[in-house]
């Protein structure tokens, strides 16, 4: 029976399983349906979870750090409150000037109105940032290049546009050197992005967490010169008339640093502590002035980027799968025990308990696979429903190969789990007694 005999036996068990399943079609369909529904709902919600909690920039997520500094004056400082997400322009510019990280960028989201050569003016989502942004976030270019630090310093009238905007305005041709009319000013296009979208848009979660990348990128200094509208969280204290002024007491700029080696991370942390100590000495505040340095995944976790509704749905679906499995256990138990006669005959003819156990598990596995296939179809349907929901992440939800594989593993595992108890009971059917009682 052992060794070469095993595959033959599995084939025989498969044959037995198919016969047994065909014999009681209603019960079989019930079991397959129960597993399919459980797997379908679980995989739908797990896929959503998988997509939303994914690493948006896997090759660099451990090297990119969001910088937070608590520079609130004492009367706005609340002990125990979290370090704010954004920096003031004064602090962001100071850190940028020191340039102690391998790369660094400050930025803000905005909207700007662009007047094309033909057609109506367009209101576009924009990002105002500094030169390192594109290297730090591994932004691909189709045409041209990013602006450089010199352009930041000289407030150059330049812009980088997205592939989509390039298609819309220039029919997809190389538009570098062309001008972009913004109000009464014009910006020279120096680069066109390739396909690039970060989901979640981790570098700035305050303006729609999921969705396409911005359409226009402009040096922050240029955007301030042109008084382009910013968007996002603006948190001010004290009396001020211009929230974008160099010394305005307003938190509104996102600041990212790229730190490629563990030693630079330690050094950068120390540098930030020193910076805060200087600010304290300069009399801005008397509290300790905490800092916060989070890498991409820590940052996403801290901001709770997976919607709590999605987490709730996962729990709900797993509970649902549990009920479907209980259901399957009950039905398999009924099915196997109803066949006590047949099993006791096989036992009397010399089949070992192990063989009976295997035979039952194979039958459960067949049910599980069938349930998995139907469940996959149901999950596909579920994902179509999710994509039609009015949420900002709806368009991103796709099943990838790893989730496809996970579906079958989950289906097979759960049906084997469900088959375990019934198979255990079945293998304890005594040969003689069962024959007698029949």
């Amino acid at each position: 029976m052992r060794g070469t005999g095993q595959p033959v036996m599995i084939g025989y068990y498969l044959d037995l399983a198919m016969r047994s399943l065909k014999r009681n079609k209603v019960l079989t369909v019930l079991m397959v349906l129960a597993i399919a529904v459980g797997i379908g709902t679980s995989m739908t919600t797990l896929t959503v979870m998988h997509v939303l909690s994914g690493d948006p920039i896997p090759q660099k997520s451990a090297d990119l750090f969001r910088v937070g500094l608590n520079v609130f004056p004492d009367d706005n400082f609340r002990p125990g409150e979290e370090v704010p997400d954004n920096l003031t322009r004064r602090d962001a510019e100071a850190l940028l000037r020191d340039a102690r990280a391998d790369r660094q960028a400050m930025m803000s989201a905005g909207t700007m109105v662009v007047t094309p050569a033909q057609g109506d003016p367009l209101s576009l989502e924009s990002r105002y940032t500094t030169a390192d942004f594109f290297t730090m976030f591994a932004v691909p270019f189709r045409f041209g290049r990013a602006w450089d630090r010199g352009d930041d310093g000289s407030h150059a009238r330049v812009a980088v546009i997205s592939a989509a905007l390039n298609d819309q305005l220039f029919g997809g041709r190389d538009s570098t050197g062309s001008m972009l009319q913004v109000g009464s000013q014009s910006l020279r296009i120096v680069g066109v992005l390739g396909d690039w979208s970060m989901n979640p848009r981790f570098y700035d979660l305050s303006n729609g967490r999921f969705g396409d990348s911005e359409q226009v990128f402009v040096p922050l200094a240029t955007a301030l010169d042109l008084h382009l509208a910013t968007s996002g969280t603006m948190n001010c204290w004290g009396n001020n008339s211009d929230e974008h002024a160099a010394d305005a007491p307003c938190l509104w700029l996102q600041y990212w640093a790229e730190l490629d080696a563990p030693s630079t991370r330690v050094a950068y942390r120390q540098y930030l502590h020193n910076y805060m100590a200087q600010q304290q000495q300069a009399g801005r505040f008397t509290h300790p002035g905490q800092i916060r340095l989070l890498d991409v995944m820590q940052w996403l976790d801290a901001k709770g980027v997976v919607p709590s509704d999605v987490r709730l749905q996962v729990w709900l679906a797993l509970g649902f799968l549990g009920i479907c499995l209980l259901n399957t256990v009950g039905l398999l138990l009924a099915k196997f025990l109803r066949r006590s006669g047949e099993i006791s005959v096989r036992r009397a003819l010399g089949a070992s308990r192990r063989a009976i156990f295997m035979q039952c598990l194979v039958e459960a596995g067949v049910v599980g696979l069938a349930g998995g296939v139907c469940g996959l179809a149901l999950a596909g349907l579920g994902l179509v429903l999710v994509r039609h929901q009015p949420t900002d992440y709806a368009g991103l939800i796709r099943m990838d190969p790893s989730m496809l594989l996970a579906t079958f593993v989950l289906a097979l595992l759960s049906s084997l789990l469900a088959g375990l108890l019934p198979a255990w009971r079945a293998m304890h059917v005594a040969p003689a007694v069962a024959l007698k009682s029949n």
Partner: protein
Amino acid sequence: MDILPILSTLRRHKLTAGLLVMQIALTCAIVCNAVFLIGQRLQRMDLPSGVAEHELLQIQVADVVKSGNPYARVQEDLALLRQVPGVQSVAFSNQVPFGGSSSNGNVLLDPNQPQRTLNATTYFGQNLVPTMGVQMVAGRDLQDDDFVDVDTALKGLKTGDTKSLPHVTLITRDMAERLWPGQNPLGRLIYLTPTVGLRVVGVMASLVRPNAYDANTAQYTMVIPLRMGADRGMSYVIRARPQDRASVLAAALAALRKADPQRIVTTQRSFDEVRRHFFRDDRAMAGILVGVIAALLVVTALGIVGLASFWVAQRRRTIGVRRALGATRSDVLHYFQTENFLLATIGIGLGMVLAYGINLFLMQHYELPRLPAIYFPVGAVALWLIGQVAVLGPALRAAAVPPVVATRAG
């Protein structure tokens, strides 16, 4: 119906009976909590706005080139919109109820207190109360001579010239009750910063925040007499009869475009759409929960049908013997119905405990309130009904077993 023989039979089928009980318990627990969650969502979606939602339109425009005098621009636009046939009233506002993005401020009762008393949203703009249909319950609406230009106010803030700041405000009844419980709020002062004090001149019945995520603070709202220019992404709010809104919106957009073809409309929608958009996640979640409850009940019912059929088939001989010994069809029918009722009752009992546990978990992780006791009997009745409906088919089949079966070999 005698329960004892049923119990002794069940004792011999501990495992299958136990599985069924567990399935019913889990279903009961999840259904109780899911129904509760649906109730929570529906309640949220019903949050009152305090404005005449079915009569309002929102239009947001952006200028391509900054206009000469943004204040004059707004007055021209308002005059233009008032001319549009069907328009009853027009307002200019920095934000709209359930619009999402909002302007907020900390409110102090004493200019020297270190911590804020509460955080409230601030509406600025002219003609808001009559246009939106906000009801005043005490005092008066803002008047023309209360209003100050935003730029004048900002300059005053910087130079410390308090004369050029607004001096009065409207607040909601909820906010008044939170600040001065049981007292008359009219004439009292609140402070936005230690130097900016506002006197309450009117109390509104209700006006919801643009970002009303928390029902407890959804009504902490002020309306401050600040006049704004056309350069800050503000909204025109138009009131018209519900049936006229589509034509009024089209005509208003045409009028604005004719006045200046060089600007673009960034938002144009009715307030029904504003509300629908704001609560879209809640509606989606409620839909999903309804689907899950339906699927759960169907799966559990099918499980009961499957197991009951198995039991009936297994006990055909016993049933035949009982029938031969004088039991009527209805005795057999009742036997299986009572058996199911017993199992369901045990399952429901366990399910209640489980439901309570799940609720505790949700309270900890999702900031939900405690499950009200009313959900327990509702869940129990639902599962009893499902169980009885599911068992009816197999029980009828059992009742149809003829007494002659007893004489045949199984």
